[in-house]
């Protein structure tokens, strides 16, 4: 790894850091609440566990204005194309948090009706386990994602 010796590298690295910092400090989630996890996601955004302190309480209805998709809930076969369409409509850079057991692996419903893990359909950055994960777990997941972004790591697309 080349050491940043010349001033231009130093400036670019600084710029990268600033951009990453800005991205994490106002990551707007697209509302993709499907089932029980959506309720806990809303609870995370409510006053008791306040997502607004991370700049994230604005759940954008339109995916075009969002950069984070929290897939909260079980994704059925019928919903999977919709999920993909919403994901495709988001502009880069975008991240996906798979919230809950059903979104991560299909959860307790290992059957014909569910997509066994939303990573079959969209690339996922952070998996938050739980059924449903409490607000603290979801926030831990969000902070993990923010830490990864700040450190400059992105998932491979």
């Amino acid at each position: 790894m080349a050491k940043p010796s010349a001033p231009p590298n130093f400036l670019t690295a600084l710029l990268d850091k600033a951009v990453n910092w800005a991205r994490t400090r106002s990551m707007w989630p697209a509302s993709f609440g499907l089932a029980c996890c959506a309720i806990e996601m809303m609870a995370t955004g409510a006053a008791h566990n306040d997502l607004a302190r991370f700049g994230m309480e604005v759940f954008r209805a339109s995916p075009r204005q969002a950069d984070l998709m929290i897939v909260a809930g079980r994704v059925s076969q019928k919903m999977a194309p919709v999920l993909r369409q919403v994901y495709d409509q988001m502009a880069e850079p975008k991240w996906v948090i798979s919230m809950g057991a059903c979104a991560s692996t299909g959860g307790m419903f290992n059957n014909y009706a569910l997509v066994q893990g939303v990573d079959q359909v969209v690339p996922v950055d952070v998996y938050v386990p739980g059924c449903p994960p409490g607000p603290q777990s979801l926030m831990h997941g969000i902070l993990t994602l923010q830490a990864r972004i700040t450190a400059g790591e992105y998932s491979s697309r």
Partner: protein
Amino acid sequence: MTDQSAAEETGAGYTGLAERFPDAAFSQSYGQTVCRVPRDRLVEFATAAVAEGFSMFVDLCAVDYLHRDPRFEVVVNLASLDPPRRLRILVGVPGDDPTAPSITGVLPGANFYEREAFDLFGIEFSGHPDLTRILLPDDWVGHPLRKDAPVGSVPVQFKEANTAS
């Protein structure tokens, strides 16, 4: 509402139906009134039940009793409000001819329920205005809640465990 005793009133609705439909077998299942009605008389029976006071549509579902003849059973659940009592109508539907008359003409609430039974079991309800899949995607093949349809589970890897299916 006259002040007849509740027991008399409870009996009256059922006995009225039992008289009009001698081929409907009334029985008690764990304290609940159940009535087996032949398929071709379902609409008539439902109309009569609604007239007798069972005006609230509660539920319609299907059951697959794989190794029984008739294979399927359509279960219609009605309730009357005053006095409160329930009536469960069981209709046998054979496996080689999975059709049944639709009661949406009598009780429009059966609309979605019959579509669900069609979707998950493949029972066709003749006279239904829009018999299409409701819960599964349109291009789905098969009827998953039938007993000979698999659950569709994927094998899960557990380290150091022998999981049979």
